């Protein structure tokens, strides 16, 4: 079994109000110099065949019309 992380984020150019809200909130808390904030989703899974993960993303884990995904292999599952 392999540990895999799928990072799903709004596609570039798609308005991301959650990201904007965070980007506006941080300076108010004294954290300056923050830009390009996007809020997405993290899916963690143990899979026997990591090669299937991109297909899982295309079919279910992401909506590729509005989201990009990135598959990160974390090595053997614990």
């Amino acid at each position: 079994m392999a540990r895999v992380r799928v990072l799903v984020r709004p596609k570039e150019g798609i308005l991301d109000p959650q990201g904007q809200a965070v980007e506006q909130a941080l300076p108010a808390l004294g954290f300056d110099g923050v830009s390009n904030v996007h809020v997405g989703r993290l899916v963690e899974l143990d899979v026997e065949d990591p090669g299937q993960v991109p297909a899982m993303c295309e079919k279910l884990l992401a909506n590729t019309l509005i989201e990009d995904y990135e598959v990160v292999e974390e090595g053997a599952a614990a």
Partner: protein
Amino acid sequence: MTTFGVIRFPGSCDEVDALQAARHFGEAKLLWHKDRDLGGVDAVVVPGGFSYGDYLRVGAIARFSPVMESVAEFARSGGLVLGICNGFQVLCEAGLLPGALLPNLERRFICRQLGIEVVSDATAWTAACSPGDVLSIPVKHTSGRYYVPDDQLADVNVVFRYAHDGNPNGSTNDIAGVANAEGNVVGLMPHPEHAVDPLTGSTDGLKLFESAVRERVPA
């Protein structure tokens, strides 16, 4: 007599309301999400709610339910399908309608009675309307911001727009509802099934159900 089938997913909320609305014009029954058999209905309503909890992404899991496989087949063979709110999201996820629904610009759930302008009467669900009609129908959703990539926008068969600068969610071009190219499948964020009785609101939502019947039985 037209028979409407209203899908019940775990997490559906407005299926009974849709059932009652449809019964103004025909028979109506619930279709269970685990059943592939649509029971010979003439029109399918995919109702509002939070199917399967709307976890992962709105409508993402419901589209793979057994009943939706049959609905997709039904739609592709010309069957009448109406997706309301979460149902619209499910139809987009299923690829039966173009586009996707994003979180509202203000990031909050919004419940409001609104004016909805009919853009096209050339669909199965708006045949009883005229272009330019403004229907008073409520919206209630967190993810209703309709989006299609710019290069596909021109091809979208827009059916409803938010009227009077009343766009509640930041949708592209004030789009409130769309149809497929054939016009038999319509999805919209507003809730026509909650606009069927003067006691609890307006009656303008009846037009959509009436249209479906008119489509079935030409006068």
